[in-house]
């Protein structure tokens, strides 16, 4: 195995699972997420000589996952928002309450348009800054703000106000 391949293999093996989790949140399907990670890592392998360190490689791979996911959805006609017919009622019955909430949020996140979904995953799961999210999505910071805002607004509309979904900026304003 060449030095290049060895360094790449170490990176891919150490970060593969984490990348898969983020990809899964973006596409909502484990197998599709695996395909997405394989494709993104292939792009990273091609670019490896100019990436040189793992931090740049991870940022590059994350960007590849995000843009490839959005492209796949666009090309395969999956980009349409998928409205759900079920309005989610909250019931005060302990643990099942939390599970119901989680599944409801998951269902509604998956129904969002791909760019809004990607923005929410990058901001709130990956904990990226707006600038980092913009880099990963190949868009302007303003676009990230609008995508996040639109995504949260739709979730509130679908889930009701009793599930607290407020962006950090909105939280500051309401305090």
């Amino acid at each position, binding site marked *: 195995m060449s030095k290049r*391949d060895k360094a790449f293999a170490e990176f*891919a*093996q150490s970060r593969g699972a984490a990348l898969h989790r983020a990809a899964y949140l973006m596409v909502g399907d484990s197998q599709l997420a695996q395909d997405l990670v394989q494709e993104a890592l292939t792009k990273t392998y091609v*670019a490896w*000589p100019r990436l040189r360190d793992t931090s740049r490689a991870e940022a590059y791979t994350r960007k590849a996952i995000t843009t490839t996911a959005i492209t796949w959805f666009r090309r395969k006609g999956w980009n349409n928002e998928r409205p759900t017919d079920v309005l989610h009622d909250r019931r005060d019955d302990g643990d099942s309450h939390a599970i119901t909430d*989680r599944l409801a949020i998951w269902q509604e996140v998956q129904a969002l348009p791909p760019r809004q979904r990607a923005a929410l995953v990058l901001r*709130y*799961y990956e904990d990226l800054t707006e600038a980092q999210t913009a880099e990963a999505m*190949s868009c302007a910071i303003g676009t990230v703000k609008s995508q996040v805002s639109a995504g949260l607004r739709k979730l509130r509309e679908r889930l009701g106000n009793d599930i607290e979904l407020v962006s950090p900026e909105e939280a500051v304003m309401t305090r």
Partner: protein
Amino acid sequence: MTEELKTMMTRQADELEPFSPDIDAITGAGRRRLRSRRFGAAGAGVAVVLAVGLGVPQLLGGGSPDDSRDTNVAVTESAPSTWAQGSVIHVGDATVDVGHPVHSFVVTTAGFVSTDPDGKVWSTRDGRTEQVGEGTPEYGRQLVADGSWAGWIESQPGQPARFSFMDQAGDEKVEYSDGVTPDSAGEDSGSQAELFALDGDGAYLRDSNGLVRLDLGTRTPETLLADPGIRDRIDDVEQGLVLHTFDAEAERGPTVASEEVTEREPALAVDGGDLSPDKRFVMSENSADSSDDFTLIEVGTGADLTPPAKGDYAFFTGYAWIDDSSYMAFGIKELPQGDGTGKAAPPMPTDLLRCDAAARTCDVVQPGLDFSKVELPVGENIGD
């Protein structure tokens, strides 16, 4: 706050089954993608009338150059199958031992130019092999060729890259450097030196100025697209028509065939590729939508002329044009499943095929090579 959203995402992700990427599949696909971007630069193909002195001992040192040339094996369109294994280059049933392990090689109208694993560059002509360069980049494409010319990049640690060219027919050599561009191992990815293609007297390359055409006759560089950080690539050039691809970072950009490298449309249904000598066709290992998806189209009409033989193999791609409408391809019947450890791959029986673009037909001309042991005349090590 968004704690519920975060919690939901974390718990959903935590419920996933553990996933480990298939490293062998990734590196294999990555290598093929790199190669397919470079097939176009490897040369006009293997169809040229070639007199190379295929290791016939009695010819060495005897007779005039013209005499030896007359008695050398002439490789014509009837014997386009060219591959290397170890130090031996095979041309149909004939062979030449170049005296070093062939790491990569190209075919010119006068002979072969090859590299060894140490990065040295060798010229083989009229039965003799001599070193003509050193310091080729460790990875990726090492050699390009067109007609009797071959080219490569030389670099030494801490030194700017130097583009080197030689006319194997006339022994003319040209060297060019802007004095600042690092080689492909440079930190600044956008300004690394890269040699894309040769087309007649023109060498197409990237240096610190951007995309450049170097006139090998006058040794005059012409900047085609001034952008020191540009990562767009030129895939091939034939008779002034430039096949080029916009690099959109992680997102693939369109591949376009145009006289000007600034054109961004119309997008072709391929990702990179190799133009036929008459620039009518382009073939690529990757379609615009999918990797490892050999596609051959007519440039002018966009007609898909991918041969049905593609379906006979687990992996199939064209790699060199023989003439304006014929090309060489290879097909691998069955791809071994990697175990993720990167260990040496098992044998991969591979057929070399001669195909007709317009008729969409292919015939096996060399069956049963082991893909893991051979090198094809694409200017790049297939195993890297």
